[in-house]
């Protein structure tokens, strides 16, 4: 019914979409990173924690599903990147482990380490989780230090097929300025989105005022870092694939050409950017505008999705190997078999139903904005 190539493209789209959704949902992390800067007392902190606390599992689950979907659809990426960029992924995982318990534990008697410790955990997750995920994704454009040789499997004394080229196992990505640009862009975007979310959800005059200020204060560096990353990437060399031979080679302005040669992606990218700016601008310039999170949120999903499509579509290597270009991963050489992709495609038909019940549940819980009285009357409040 579908060709293998179609299925590979389809699954790279799903991965890109999940990446976009994850980036949007990182507003939870952004909010966590502002726990101390946005609030002036414990009540306000409690409001933020509870408003974020009703959403943290969506981000966590999306991250886990992102990993699982990558494993199922592009297992060579899963094995090469996680097994190779070990320290980056471990750092990300530790950030999220400490987040997972913090909401539930932080105000409970007997939590052993005190409320502040868990709030610091949330802050660490907010700061490092976003920057590291952003930097890790940037390596899709900047490359990583690994070699893949499947023939190693027959060497009984050294059967490992993907080898990382240095002992830093991924941390060396932080020496690349372009990786920092995307990491910081994700960090400031997450804070901007969080502030927009607070404007939408919280019924507290001071918090709303501080949040509107925070939108502007964070949106400006976000735009600087994001635009710097995008412009640099569009002007840089990219990792192109010869469609006939499968050979990977460096091509000038590769990502720029991808954008031009895929007008649908270009349009999506631009619409996404406009939506992000609309959400931010509307909130900054109009005191009555509270729906900014939805424009920025949808815009984020669309923009990030298009960026990732640029990385993997149009004969581009999405996970380039800098010491040996021919070890680079493409959607063609790293994907699961046609059978598995077909089986997973059938499962993916259920995704709209999942989104529908999430939407329904989200709306049923958020009929009114939240204030301290709501939290005090909720016996499961954090």
């Amino acid at each position, binding site marked *: 019914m579908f060709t293998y190539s179609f299925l590979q493209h389809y699954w790279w789209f799903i991965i890109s979409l999940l990446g976009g959704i994850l980036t949007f949902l990182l507003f939870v992390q952004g909010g966590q990173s502002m726990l101390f800067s946005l609030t002036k007392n414990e009540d306000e902190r409690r409001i933020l924690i509870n408003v974020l606390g009703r959403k943290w599992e969506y981000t966590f689950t999306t991250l886990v*599903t992102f*990993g699982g979907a990558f494993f199922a659809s592009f297992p060579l990426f899963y094995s090469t990147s996680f*097994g190779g960029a070990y320290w980056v992924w471990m750092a990300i995982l530790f950030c999220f482990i400490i987040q997972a*318990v913090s909401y539930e534990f932080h105000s409970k008697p*007997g939590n052993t380490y005190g409320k502040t410790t868990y709030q610091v955990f949330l802050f660490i997750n907010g700061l490092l989780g976003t920057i590291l995920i952003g930097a890790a994704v940037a390596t899709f454009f900047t490359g990583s230090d690994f070699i893949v040789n499947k023939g190693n499997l027959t060497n009984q004394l050294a059967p490992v097929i*993907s080898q990382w080229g240095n002992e830093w196992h991924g941390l060396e990505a932080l020496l690349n300025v372009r990786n920092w640009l995307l990491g910081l862009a994700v960090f400031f975007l997450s804070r901007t989105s969080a502030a927009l979310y607070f404007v939408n959800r919280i019924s507290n005059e001071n918090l709303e005022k501080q949040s509107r200020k925070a939108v502007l204060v964070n949106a400006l560096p976000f735009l600087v870092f994001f635009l710097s990353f995008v412009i640099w990437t569009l002007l840089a060399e990219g990792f192109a694939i010869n469609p006939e031979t499968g050979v990977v080679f460096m091509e000038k302005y590769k990502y720029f050409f991808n954008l031009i040669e895929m007008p649908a992606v270009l349009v999506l990218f631009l619409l996404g950017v406009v939506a992000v700016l609309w959400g931010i601008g509307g909130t900054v310039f109009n005191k009555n505008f509270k729906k900014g999170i939805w424009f920025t949120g949808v815009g984020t999903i669309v923009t990030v999705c298009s960026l990732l499509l640029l990385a993997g579509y149009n004969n581009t290597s999405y996970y380039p190997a800098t010491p040996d270009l021919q070890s680079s991963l493409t959607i063609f050489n790293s994907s*699961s078999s046609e059978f598995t992709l077909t089986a997973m495609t059938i499962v993916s038909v259920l995704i709209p139903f999942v989104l529908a019940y999430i939407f329904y549940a989200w709306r049923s819980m958020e009929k009114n904005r939240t204030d301290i009285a709501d939290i005090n009357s*909720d016996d499961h409040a954090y």
Partner: protein
Amino acid sequence: MELLDVSLVNWSRAQFTLTAMYHWIFVPLTLGLGIIQAIMETIYYRTGDEKWKHVTKFWMTLFGVNFAIGVATGIILEFQFGTNWSNYSWFVGDIFGAPLAIEGILAFFMEATFISIMFFGWNKVSKKFHLVSTWLTILGATLSAFWILVANAWMQHPVGMEFNPDTVRNEMVSFWEILSPFALNKFLHTVWSSWIVASLFVLGVSAWFLIKKRDIDFAKKSIKVAAIFGLTASILTALSGDGSAYNVAQHQPMKLAAMEGLYDGQNGAELVAFGVLSSDKKAYNDSVDPFAFKIAFPKALSLLAYRDINAFVPGVNDIIKGGYESKTGDKLSFTEKQARGKVALQALNDYKKALAEKDTVSAASHKSTLMANYNYFGYGYLETPEETIPNVPSIFYSFHLMVILGMFFIALFSVFTFMSFKKNIILEKQNLFLWIALLSIPLGYVASQLGWIVAELGRQPWTIQDVLPLKASVSGLSVMSVKITLFLFLTLFTALLVAEVRILVKQIGKGPHEESK
């Protein structure tokens, strides 16, 4: 290219064991308590009795604390196949990755969505929607267990795939075969045994309230639900346990031999009910009796393993020597399997070389040799027969202790079910049984972990039974890297466990709201 450090394999195993066992402290309580609280909320919904609402909310608070740390310890497992077992992830990821992805899409999102309504929606949504959310939360958790257990079952009994020499990996050819009877039985056994853990928890905590003469009505209501639920779960676990062992006999004979301490097979093999292994036995092929002492039922192992009281059950020596009449049809000795495995490895190597040299005739010949010997591919990595023998004492004692505990649980829940319904028994005065119930809480956890020791240690040296050994499965990392992350996980998880236990104890001490002493 660096040579593989054998200690890297062992430290990677240790890390996976540590993280999995920590995760498994919390998951059974989630799986079982999720059902118990849903039953209690259903009773509240149907009767309108507010006391059942308070009962439900009390257990739900404990559920929430436990769930959070279950999630925290679970995320590393999702990614650890990649971080520490990258060769494995490539070699079998085409089959193994799909259940993990489905787990995320179908199960985790259901849990994450409806748990929010369950915790925070009491005053925001209708009673009916809230009840549905409580059930959907545990349905999500159970579905999550289903998919990960399908994946684990496939490691024990790999089916539905074919090796592709061009991509150098196994590829799925049948999705439905993966949902095998082995997988279904494993899922049921694991989930039902989790219900035991939760039932013991509820029973024990409720018993504490009765010992303290507190919240008596709440405690009795909880005991009634826990006793019946626990008894049902214990019986179902025993039945599915038999199914598990039967499957092991068919597909993992070495594991069964280890479970029973069986070195020399027999027709009409006996089942060891209780035994002490001899420390004089140093090698699988010395003639020392493996048992210092045992109580056994004649022919019972043959009956349970093959449903035939005279069937031959192979021991460790038979599996290594080969040549016995096997129900699975595999009579080859270790030496023969190893030889074929090495032929397969060499043939794959030669095939790749021939392709690179564009020698299609040689390539076809090597491919044919490879596929003819592929069933023993994994044996090509092994050097000695000892490598195929898992740690017999650990598996033997784990298995037998787990079964003994299982029988104790049936007895305990039977007694409490009886006492809960017998009108002339005053439960709060049965101090001896209440203390037994309280002290039995950790036994459920112990039995549950022992089951996993049998399942996973019994599969050694394989990550995928007969297909891929551990030494060919690891990532190319330094031993120091793995030691560091293992130490960090140990420290963090232990710290969080301490916090979790203290919070639970405090929450229990607070008691259910609105109840009078």
